[in-house]
Structure formats: C-alpha cells, structure tokens
C-alpha cells in the first residue's frame, strides 16, 4: 500500500476519534481550570491528567523498547526557552477570554458555537500579525535573550530530557516517563478518589462514576472525562506510531500550527507567504501553490488531523442531538472572541505551539517545552477569568 495513503488514512481516522473524545468528553483545558478556580471541581481536570499520564507512559515504553528508536523520536523534540513562557501567557489569556483552548475550540465550533468561529478567525489574523510584525522583532529579542543563558535552553537533543539526565541509556525515556507520566496519573487518580469520597460523604452512599456505559456509546449522554482522557492518549499513540512507520518519521501532534497555515491558503492568490515572509520561510510546512484553482494539497498530516477532528466533533454533536447554530445574544461576545483569538494565535506562534502542540507534545517528546508552557498557561487563563468576572 502507498505509505502516504496509509499515513493519511490512519491519521484521518485518529482525528475522528480525537474529535469524538473532545466533544463527548468535554475535554477543554479552560473548562477544567475555570471549574478548579471557581468551584474547586476537578472532574474535567482528572480526564486531562489521565490523558497526559497514560500517553507519556506509553511513549516512554515505545521509545525504551525500541519500537520507535530514540534517534528517530528525538527528531520531533521541541526546542524550549523563554518563548514558551511568554507565548503561553498570551495564549492562556486568549483562550481564557474565548472560554476555549485549542481542543475545546474545535469541539465548540464543531457543535455550532458561532462565537468560537470568531475565535478561529482571530487566530488566523493573529498568525498573520505575528508573521508580519512580531517575527522580525523576535529576531531582535532572540539576540537580547541569548545573552541571558538561564532563559534560553538549547534546542534539539539538548532539550531531550532522557538524554540530558541519562545520556544514551536505552531505559532513559522509560524512567523519565515514569516520573512525569506517573506524577500526572497518580494526581489524576487521587483527585478522582478524593472527589468520589467527598460526594459519598455528602450523599451518605458509596458514590462512583462508571468510566463507560451503554448510554455513552449510544451518544445519549456525554463521556466521562476519564473515558475522554483514555481516548486522548490512544490517539496520541496512534499518531506517533503511524508517523514513524509510514512517511513523515517525525512524530508530532499539533493543532494551531496546521490550522494557522490555513491563512496561506486563503491569501494564496494575492501573496505567497511561504516565499515572501520570514516566519513562513522558516516554517517546516511545505510550499503550496499560489493558484487558488489548483488542487491545494493537505500540507501535512496534522492539517488533515485538524479537519477530521472537527468532523468527528460535529458528527458526535449531531448524533448526541447537541448540534445547533448558537448565536450569542450579546454581540460584544464576537468582539471578545476575536480579540481572544488574536491573543491565542500570537501566543501560540511565539511558543511554537498550543496546549496540544507544545504542552502535550512537549511532555510526550520529553522536552522542557511542556514544563515551561504549563505555569504561565495557567496564569494566563486565571487572569482572563478574573478579567471577565470583573467586567461582566
């Protein structure tokens, strides 16, 4: 079988599962953190922690067992540095304003929330704004910050934590996965146990929530966040293995970068950004035709993943009877989502990715990028929540 066809087919199907997991499991980082800050509720967070824990452990096993050799895995490792801290703060504030992270955005836009379509538009505008204004400036910032060593971790192999800690030891990835993945998993399981205990005490019964039921499978009720989390992890493993065993070799899972590349499709008849603008020249995305009427190729498998994730979310929203075009009564919400979308786009470009591409993939690739992205992401979302509580 043609390896391209195989890779795109597998990743396309993985996207459908991913979309279903997002929509049915309500897997949104903003929802998880808002519930935490506002009511100390951890239900959605537990699913996300489970997704991180299981997938990190799986990647450690895959790399240490040599299913995907370390030398190949390391090619996908994200460079990490000051830009993760700065970018994720802006990104976190942006997604907080819109009430949807990149995964939450896909399932909400796919369920018919028109304000999130405005966020999608804002991200495209933010990407272009970054490319024309901020990118040239960041070269200047790079120059300044390179003189501050503690803010600038070296990209490539040096950011691969197993190599940094254990050299070329084959068991390195597994031990690192055990530390980080184990931490996420234990925290997720602990929070679930604590929540069940609290509800049991309140209701005077032994409270438990099933991970999966027939009604969930029949789309009559939403997935438990834990089921969503498990599917999240399964998709990451499928994409990782499909990438390695077919064409692209480099395993990376992202949403914002392939989505942001849609601006190049829209502007193709007017300007070929890939040949003219520094940010796109530096991009790993392939060059596309400047003729709108030619068949525009799906640039990278991740672009297809975004499209099928969207399709998966919409399909399960329809099957669950939840699809509806939703227009906010307060039209100012369109403006808020547009501005939030610009922050989302700019932040994701500065940090070289979003909560999927840099945060989750960062941890999966055993790079410091995920670790640097996390604290300022949470801070950004917190600030956006406080801002909205103050103005609305």
């Amino acid at each position, binding site marked *: 079988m043609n390896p391209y066809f195989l890779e795109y087919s597998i990743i396309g199907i993985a996207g459908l599962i991913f979309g279903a997991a997002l929509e049915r499991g309500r897997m949104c980082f903003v929802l998880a953190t*808002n519930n935490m800050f506002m*009511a100390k509720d951890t239900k959605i967070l537990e699913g996300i922690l489970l997704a991180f824990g299981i997938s990190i452990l799986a990647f450690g096993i895959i790399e240490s067992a040599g299913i995907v050799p370390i030398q190949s895995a390391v090619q996908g490792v994200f460079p990490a540095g000051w830009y993760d801290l700065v970018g994720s703060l802006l990104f976190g504030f942006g997604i907080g304003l819109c009430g949807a992270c990149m995964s939450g955005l896909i399932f909400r836009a796919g369920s018919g929330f028109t304000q999130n379509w405005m966020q999608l538009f804002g991200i495209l505008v933010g990407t272009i704004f970054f490319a024309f204004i901020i990118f040239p400036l960041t070269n200047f910032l790079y120059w300044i910050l390179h003189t501050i060593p503690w803010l600038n971790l070296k990209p490539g192999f040096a950011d691969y934590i197993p190599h940094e800690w254990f050299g070329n030891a084959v068991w390195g990835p597994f031990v690192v996965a055990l530390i980080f993945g184990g931490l996420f998993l234990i925290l997720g399981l602990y929070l679930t146990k604590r929540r069940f205990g609290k509800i049991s005490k309140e209701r005077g019964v032994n409270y438990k929530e099933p991970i999966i039921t027939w009604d969930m499978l029949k789309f009559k009720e939403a997935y438990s966040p834990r089921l969503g989390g498990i599917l999240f992890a399964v998709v990451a493993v499928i994409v990782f293995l499909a990438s390695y065993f077919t064409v692209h070799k480099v395993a990376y899972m992202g949403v914002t970068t392939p989505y942001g590349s849609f601006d190049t499709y829209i502007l193709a008849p007017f300007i070929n950004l890939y040949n003219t603008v520094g940010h796109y020249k530096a991009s790993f995305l392939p060059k596309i035709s400047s003729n709108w009427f030619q068949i525009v190729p799906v640039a990278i498998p991740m672009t297809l993943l975004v499209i099928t994730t969207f399709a998966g979310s919409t399909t399960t929203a329809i099957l669950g*009877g939840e699809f509806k075009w939703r227009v906010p009564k307060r039209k100012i919400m369109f403006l808020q989502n547009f501005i939030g979308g610009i922050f989302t786009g700019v932040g994701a470009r500065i940090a070289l990715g979003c909560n999927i591409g840099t945060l989750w993939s960062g941890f999966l690739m055993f790079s410091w990028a995920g670790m640097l992205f996390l604290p300022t992401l949470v801070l950004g979302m917190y600030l956006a929540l406080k801002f909205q509580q103050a103005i609305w």
Partner: protein
Amino acid sequence: MAEEKSLENVKPDETLDVLGETCPIPEAMAHKKLNKMKVGQVLEVYTDHAAAVENSFPSMLNKLNYPYCVTKTGPGEFTIKIKKTS
C-alpha cells in the same frame, strides 16, 4: 446540594439569558446575579452550553449549597432554576 425537582414550577424572580455563550460566562454571570439577589429568590438561567450544565453549574452550586433544577428545553438547550438560600 443535589438537584431539586420541586423548583420546576416555581416562578423566577430574575432571569439570565446566556444562550450562545460558553464558559466561564454563564456561571460567572449567574454567580454575580445571585450575589445581588435576596435570600429566597429564584434565578432562571437560559443556556445552551451543555458542558456548563453538566460540570460548571453543578460544581458551583454545590459549593454555594444552593438548590437547583435543570430542564432540557430543546436540542442542546437548558433552563436552570436556582434558589438563593443564604
């Protein structure tokens, strides 16, 4: 506090229409409105954000210890009645 069916037929004192809006707006605005209301009054919230109905509202209202009642009024549309008790 668990959901209370007895609130179903109670006439609301205040209403909040947040149809089309996503988290944290529905629960944040409801919280703000409840703060301004008198003890014993009932707030009716119209929302079509299922994730808020399943997660954010129950967790916030359980923490506040306010009884509430959720009614599905259409595909993906809900009405939540909340009684301010303290």
